[in-house]
């Protein structure tokens, strides 16, 4: 009987929460908009399209070698696209474009290319990252030219895990979906808990004959449902715009539930301590955005600098990116048993903390003048 009452309490809280969220649309803006904003801006600014880099190319030589070199520039490619896109072939125009930063490199093949074996460049060296990208592409082309002429003494052979690369924009979109899961669960739970404090509903909850923890379970349920909804919207955006081809969805949606329980309870803990949602909201938004960039969302943890790797080892959210991204992109069929065990153990630890939070809340003087 008690179990039945508890079930009804949870269902009622969940229904109330959903109604509340639909009425207070300000709570839906961040969970639904932020992951998609991150996806669009990051994928477009830091990962749009293929690997083709716009350059200017001026050929002053009429030799066969220069034609071969141009052919190499046009055809040299990464695993997903050509490495160069030649935008301008007139020297004055190309040089002006470099000066204005509209092109980052002008490659000039001199008239004596056959004898000098030399090419000249002009650069808009705005930062080391841009320059690395364009200079190293040119060196890669030179190696291809030498290989064609049997003059290359040592070549490289690329061996990849899968035949086709996951495009950078698809990887970012996939990470944004995982961000939507974690972020929405955390912020929704925190907002709902803080809303109850600020609107003095905690007091009513504390006066019900049932244990107030049922309110917490209802909030966790709502947060997980919202996380699923936000992830679906982010996934559709990724599929439509950024070539995301999500795989193993059932495994992901089941496997991530313990993580979402932990995230929801974390949100409740944050709200319990900070109380006011105007404080909670930006802290959670910025922390998750930064987590996305610095701890496994933008790049896999193994590829991060040492300090970021060390940070990611202790920053729980990194593991969600690390474990679920390979599943999402079919580089792994599912999680290992040990990963499931860890996820469930973490969820259990947070579940054990939940009654403490609600007990503390019961003891807190939250009547706010009533």
């Amino acid at each position, binding site marked *: 009987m008690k179990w039945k009452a508890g079930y009804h309490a949870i269902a009622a809280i969940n229904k109330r929460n959903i109604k509340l969220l639909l009425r207070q649309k300000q709570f839906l803006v961040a969970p639904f908009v932020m992951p998609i904003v991150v996806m669009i801006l990051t994928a477009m600014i830091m990962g749009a399209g293929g690997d083709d880099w716009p350059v200017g190319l001026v050929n002053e030589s009429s030799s066969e070698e220069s034609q071969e070199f141009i052919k190499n520039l046009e055809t040299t490619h990464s695993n997903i696209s050509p490495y160069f896109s030649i935008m301008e072939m007139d020297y004055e125009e190309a040089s002006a474009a470099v000066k204005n930063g509209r092109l980052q490199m002008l490659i000039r093949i001199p008239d004596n290319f056959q004898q000098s074996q030399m090419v000249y460049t002009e650069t808009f060296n705005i930062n080391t990252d841009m320059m690395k990208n364009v200079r190293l592409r040119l060196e890669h082309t030179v190696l291809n030219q030498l290989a064609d002429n049997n003059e290359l003494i040592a070549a490289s052979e690329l061996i990849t895990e899968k035949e086709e690369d996951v495009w950078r924009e698809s990887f970012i979109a996939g990470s944004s979906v995982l961000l939507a899961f974690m972020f929405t669960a955390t912020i929704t739970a925190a907002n709902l808990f803080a809303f109850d404090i600020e609107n003095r509903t905690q007091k009513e909850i504390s006066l019900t004959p049932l244990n107030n923890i049922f309110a917490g379970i209802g909030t966790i349920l709502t947060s997980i449902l919202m996380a699923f909804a936000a992830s679906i919207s982010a996934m559709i955006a990724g599929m439509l715009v950024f070539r995301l081809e999500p795989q193993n969805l059932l495994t992901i949606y089941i496997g991530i539930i313990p993580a979402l329980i932990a995230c929801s309870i974390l949100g409740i803990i944050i709200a319990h301590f900070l109380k006011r949602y105007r404080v909670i909201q930006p802290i959670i938004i*910025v922390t998750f955005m930064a987590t996305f960039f610095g701890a496994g969302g933008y790049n896999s943890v193994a590829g*991060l600098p040492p300090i970021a790797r060390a940070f990611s080892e202790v920053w729980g959210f990194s593991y969600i990116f690390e474990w679920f991204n390979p599943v999402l992109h079919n580089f792994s069929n599912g999680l290992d048993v040990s990963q499931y065990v860890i996820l469930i153990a973490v969820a259990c630890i947070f579940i054990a903390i939940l009654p403490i939070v609600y007990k503390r809340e019961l003891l807190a003087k939250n009547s706010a003048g009533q």
Partner: protein
Amino acid sequence: MFQAIKGMIKKDLKISLRNPSMLILSIIVPIVFIFLYSLISQLSATNPVVIAQYSDDAASKELTTIMENMETEDGPYYEIRTYSPEEAFQMYQNGESPALVEIPENFGQQLEQGEDAKVKLYVNNMNSDGTKNFQLRLSHALYQFQESRDSANNISITEESSTFENDISMKFYVSIGLLMFAVVYSGMVNTGTLITREWEERTSKEISLSPNGFAPLLVAKAATALLLTTVTTIFVMILMAFTLNFPITNVSLAIIGWLFILFLIGASLGAFTAVTIKKSLPVITLSAVLGISLYLLSGNESSIRGFAYGGPIEFIWRVASYLPMSYITDTMRVIFVTGKNSLLMHATNPVTTASNFYTSIITIPATILIFSWASIVKLKNNLFTSGGQ
């Protein structure tokens, strides 16, 4: 009037100190974002890799020495985590390293005999950016190896001219974008919440009845927001001095002037948002999202300019190029790099074009004036409709 301004500033500062949530929002949020973002600032320069070096012959050693020494202004190209073949393959298979370079046992012998010497590159290609980065880095090493062993047949690349004497460090480039984010975000949040406070704490009616009019209110809110933003900016600069080598000692009067203009832009946007929405929660959320979006757009405009051709990226770049924050961010970069404080004309500023310069002359004051004016008008109307108080 002066007494009213002083009183209002004192009141807002007292409330901020009594309830540190304002300070948390203003200081901690940019610091958390900047700290975590700066963790990946090294990402573009240095890639971790493992090398399976099977032989200690001279050729293998020469190649690995080249790989060790390759670097940019921001650091080495590779962080080589091991040379041991067993450990390297184990780390690669366990996912501890995203790439593995295998130098075969007979590498030196193959070179001596003029055979096809091949260095294998194993890459986890779950992100094409990683595949490209590792392939190009290895090509850079092999290009230098070719130059050292057979320069006669190599094709030399000579840089005839460049915009800057040395490439701008990516860490520095990022730090100025983040500084812009911190000032705009802080200006928005501080001004916005100081204004919404009057509705949320139901003091708007009292203000509307004050015989001193609106001027003291506006001046006091702006002055308090400026004080809080200055504190945030100083904290952010100190943090970035450690994490991104931000040249804190080179902050000149010209930089402070541009930061003040950024504050005015943030404050006018924050004030407009506040008087429009009248609730602090959406104002804060909007400030965070807008601040980070501005970092991605304006903080990187001069970077994306060179590859924004066609499709949505060109549209995004064009939008970014019209934003006044883009011009200010790049101008601050040039001031730091060149040490010249007089960069008001485009001819002396190598990262901006004439059209961007003239656009910015209009958009910078226009943004501040339009949003400030709209805020004042809305504030007047909204204060007199005090919602049942």
